[in-house]
């Protein structure tokens, strides 16, 4: 860390790689179970370490400084994920308007849905279409778009909310 503070790039890369493994191990131990947001904790911790690197005193031990940051980021991500889970609809209860709309639905209704979809912001439209029309998994979508799984879920939730408002109907399955 001392060398990294002086601008040694190789030392900094080595440090960040070691901290990645350490953070993953720490977060898994604290979560107590496999959770999909472990890598969110890792990324946030690395960025926080980067931002706070000038506060590290080389005359003091590194572990308390690092684990204070990692613990703080873990709690932050945990709380955020908990809030997202409380807000968004669960995967198995996501609205499926293909089954809600009956076979003899008027063309106007289908057009309305298409128009509402087209009116969504590009990223929301892309994700909603991928989930509901192409039936891609959230993980695959996240990998393809370079986003985290939680970011995909939050975007999908916002897209559904916008569609509900645009269509003015309750799309929940009865």
């Amino acid at each position, binding site marked *: 860390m001392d060398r*990294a*503070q*002086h*601008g040694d*790039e190789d030392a*900094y*890369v080595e440090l*960040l*790689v070691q901290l*990645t493994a350490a953070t993953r191990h720490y977060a898994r131990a604290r979560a107590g179970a496999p959770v999909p947001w472990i*890598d*969110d904790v*890792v*990324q*946030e911790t*690395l*960025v*926080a370490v*980067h*931002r*706070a*690197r*000038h*506060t*590290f*005193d*080389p005359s*003091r031990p590194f572990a*308390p*400084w*690092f*684990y*204070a*940051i990692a613990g*703080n980021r873990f709690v932050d991500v945990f709380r955020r994920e908990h809030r997202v889970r409380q807000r968004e609809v669960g995967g198995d209860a996501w609205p499926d308007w293909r089954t809600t709309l009956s076979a003899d639905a008027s063309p106007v209704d289908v057009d309305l849905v298409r128009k509402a979809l087209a009116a969504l912001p*590009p*990223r929301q439209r892309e994700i909603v279409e991928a989930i509901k029309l192409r039936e891609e998994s959230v*993980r695959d979508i*996240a*990998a393809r778009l*370079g*986003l*985290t799984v939680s*970011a995909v879920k939050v975007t999908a939730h916002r897209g559904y909310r916008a569609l509900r408002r645009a269509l003015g109907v309750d799309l929940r399955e009865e």
Partner: protein
Amino acid sequence: MKNDRSAVASTIAALVRDAAPVVPLDPPSARVSRWALSSAAFAVLAVVFLGTRHDVASQLGRPWFAARATVTLATAIAAATAAVRLSVPGLARPLRIGAMPWALCLGWGASLAGGLVSIGSPLRLLLSASPHVSCVVCIAAIGLVPGVWLVRTLRQAEPLDVRWTGGCAGLASAASGALATQFVCSSDAPAHHLLWHFAPVVLLALAPLALAPGLFAPQGRRQRDEMKTPPWP
């Protein structure tokens, strides 16, 4: 899993690109000393500007006056020290270091309450104490400048427990203002000090708790989000 790890690798690459040599922070003792000296200089100027109480020379030798000033000064220094140490990750546990200044502050309040009780009829004395909003304004105004300086000092670091840090910073600033005001305000009545010096200090110290997340975290959160995920179109 593979793609999550490639996202982490991208983050590492972005951080290394952004890494420039950094100047390590000064030790907490140096930062607190700088703040204390500059705040003291400002407080002296403020007291001279506002005008000292007419009997300040004789009051300095009185135990009650000296004790009150000492406790207020100790509260300000302890709170500033706690805030500065809390601004460095891993240096101190919030409850352990944050408790001391608040304990001193409550001790100050307890001594005033004790003085009130020793006189007799504390409730009557409190209800009959005349309003002195000027003291509150004085404490807030004199404490504002040290408060701004302390917040700037803390923002140079990376406070993790922002509410504890903000609360201690608020207490340090308010106690500085109260210490200076003691040399301006000519009333020594415990009821007056409890209502118009101590209570405003506590309220002014708690006010930053609501502001702390915004004062200490916004840039970090924005930068974290930018570095973590690709920018959305």
